[in-house]
């Protein structure tokens, strides 16, 4: 009845990178406003705050800069999450600040993103900062990049300017191994090609930003992935109706599982078969990522939180020696011999940092093999010896399970975010220098 529509819309998580100077806040403000995601009272509050600060125009950055310190200092400190939707798709946007601690924030935003918008100013073209943002996006293997060439109004909507910037970026992205880049010329301030197609750039026949976001195909196809199921909790009701029920609750991290599948319980290695896939809404014959389900198994094995179920017929690497590419998130630098907790999947194990090496220079994409430590916001390789074996899925093939955190056992703070594998970065890091130097 009425106008209620039962849209079966899907969800796209994306991240934005760029600085206020590039017009990022204006662009986000435009997306939110034109999709009617900013409501009248929020806009009125921003107008009041803009006037109170002596501003002549409405400062849309105040929509996103929510913390007192941010407003007082006119900077963005932290990742902010924004929500907007169209008839076909809902969006979760991680808005990451361009300047302060950009690496840490960008890595956080990109970790869950399927698409990243990298913003450049048409007058300035591809800058060091643009390259950094693209490199982090590639490091995290975000499948889609949008190069938003903003402020086209300030270059007279010139096609050649846009083409040159797009070509420049495309070369760099190819070096990084990024497969999907869509360049879009736009003016966030005046609205050209953000939501509505520009009439002032007839030479551009590609999508507007919003239509691209709506239509971008989501690569993820669970049938092409290898099944992984980190066990979160064991469900044992021991109630009158379910005296003997025993199920393993978790989220399918990747791939598909079907009733009857032979599985192996890792790291111990016991084999069994899936006899039931339960949800509160009823039994399923199969489940795929990222569904949350409960699996029943044929045999009474010792399975608990931290274990991973995987297909019995494909090889899986387990081990107690972890080599990972990490983004260091703490002011406490890593040192050989330091004790850490390693959180990987649903498992937490004790570990000992054996060595730190090969710091990545995100500006030049070169690695410094002599590095012995990492500072806040730096990216490099660590070797950690673990107290017990874990499943080691390489991040290059397993974006959902090949990740870990290093945690300080003393106060529980998160020291580093890591991806399993020695050099997750990029085919490019092994290529000759001249490919990267411009």
């Amino acid at each position, binding site marked *: 009845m009425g106008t209620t529509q039962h849209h079966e819309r899907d969800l796209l998580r994306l991240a934005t990178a760029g600085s206020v100077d590039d017009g990022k806040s204006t662009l986000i403000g435009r997306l939110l406003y034109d999709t009617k995601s900013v409501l009248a009272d929020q806009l009125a509050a921003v107008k009041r705050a803009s006037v109170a600060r002596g501003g002549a125009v409405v400062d849309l950055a105040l929509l996103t800069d*929510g913390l007192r310190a941010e*407003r007082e200092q006119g900077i963005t400190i932290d990742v*902010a999450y924004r929500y907007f939707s169209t008839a076909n798709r809902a969006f979760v946007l991680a808005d990451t600040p361009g300047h302060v601690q950009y690496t840490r924030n960008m890595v956080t935003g990109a970790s869950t993103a399927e698409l990243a918008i990298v913003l450049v100013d048409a007058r300035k073209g591809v800058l060091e900062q643009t390259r950094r943002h693209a490199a982090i996006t590639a490091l995290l293997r975000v499948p889609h990049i949008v190069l938003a060439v903003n402020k086209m109004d300030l270059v007279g909507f010139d096609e050649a300017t846009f083409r040159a910037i797009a070509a420049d970026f495309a070369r760099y992205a190819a070096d990084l191994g990024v497969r999907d880049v869509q360049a879009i010329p736009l003016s966030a301030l005046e609205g050209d090609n953000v939501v509505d197609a520009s009439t002032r750039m007839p030479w551009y026949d590609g999508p507007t930003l919003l239509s691209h976001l709506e239509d971008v195909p989501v690569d993820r196809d669970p049938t092409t992935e290898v099944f992984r199921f980190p066990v*979160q909790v064991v469900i044992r009701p021991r109630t009158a109706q379910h005296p003997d029920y025993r199920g393993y609750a978790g989220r399918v991290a990747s791939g598909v599982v079907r009733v009857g599948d032979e599985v192996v319980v890792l790291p111990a290695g016991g084999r069994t078969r899936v006899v039931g896939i339960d949800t509160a809404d009823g039994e399923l014959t199969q489940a795929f990522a990222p569904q949350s389900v409960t699996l029943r198994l044929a045999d009474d094995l010792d399975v608990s939180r931290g274990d991973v179920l995987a297909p019995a017929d494909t090889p899986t690497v387990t081990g107690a020696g972890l080599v990972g590419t990490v983004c260091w998130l703490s002011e406490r630098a890593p040192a050989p011999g330091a004790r850490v*907790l390693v959180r990987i999947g*649903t498992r937490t194990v004790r570990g000992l940092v054996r060595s730190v090496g090969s710091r990545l220079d995100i500006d030049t994409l070169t690695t410094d093999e002599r590095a012995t430590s990492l500072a806040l916001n730096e990216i490099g390789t660590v070797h950690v010896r673990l107290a017990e074996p874990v499943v080691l899925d390489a991040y290059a093939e397993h974006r959902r399970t090949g990740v870990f955190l290093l*945690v300080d056992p003393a106060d529980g703070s998160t020291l580093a975010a890591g991806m399993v594998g020695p050099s997750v970065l990029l085919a490019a890091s092994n290529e000759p220098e001249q490919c990267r130097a411009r």
Partner: protein
Amino acid sequence: MRVAHMTTGITVTEARAATAPGRLTQLQALEAEAIHIFREVAGEFERPVVLFSGGKDSVVMLHLARKAFWPAPVPFTLLHVDTGHNFPEVIDYRDAVVAEHRLRLVVASVQDAIDAGAVRERPDGSRNALQTVPLLDAITTHRFDAVFGGGRRDEEKARAKERVFSLRDELGQWDPRRQRPELWDLYNGRHSPGEHVRVFPLSNWTELDVWRYIEREGIHLPTIYYAHERSVFLRDGMWLAPGDWGGPRGTETVERRTVRYRTVGDMSCTGAVESGALTVDDVIVEVAASRLTERGATRADDRASEAAMEDRKREGYF
């Protein structure tokens, strides 16, 4: 450069059809994420508690928790901070739900805290900000280590920056500058004795998502969320319900209006909106067309200053 791929409607329909593994709809994805969060807390903490007020967000949280552990009962206690100015319909609803699902409910009372001298009544009669002390006392007394809240990032600009797992110190305080980076779906719940973690399973939901989910799941809510006739008076542009808490005053006059509530909190600061929405479908249409956020329309407490929510959160508020 690649050719722009314009997905056709037909392709999309095919991809989503039937039982082939595919892509979850938005609501399915949000539900799967929330269930994952509930199970992480069950796996990592010893004494979790769910803040349950009978408000729609807490009702949806409880529904998700029941689904997460089915066929086992919800492994968490419920906690309600009772301001003493609650809508009676909501208290009745709360007690009925607790009885129906045989849950354990702890009630922390603002009135008790006032009687004990721990907090003092404010001149405007609002007890919203007074909830922080009894909340923290209850957390300490019962040694709760994880506290589920129904907060959503779309609600308010300070909440837009809060983590799903949000660490609070021994004094229950939130320090936005010391938040832990939160990557992938690896939630870090490590904490020292005396500290606790606030957990927000609905972080990525919007008001409209909550309503659509209520519709999809057929969730029963307190009646005051739907249009009804009520005696109200106007204060600061909001329709408030008269009561012992301090209204109406002076020139404020009570009149009968057909209203409903978009949020349910302390009577002193929760306003009704004029509405004829009798069903979930009606409410969804109304919310989708609304030009005001639910907090902007109905919460006096967030209007106090630009950073009103951040300041309350720092002190340990929900």
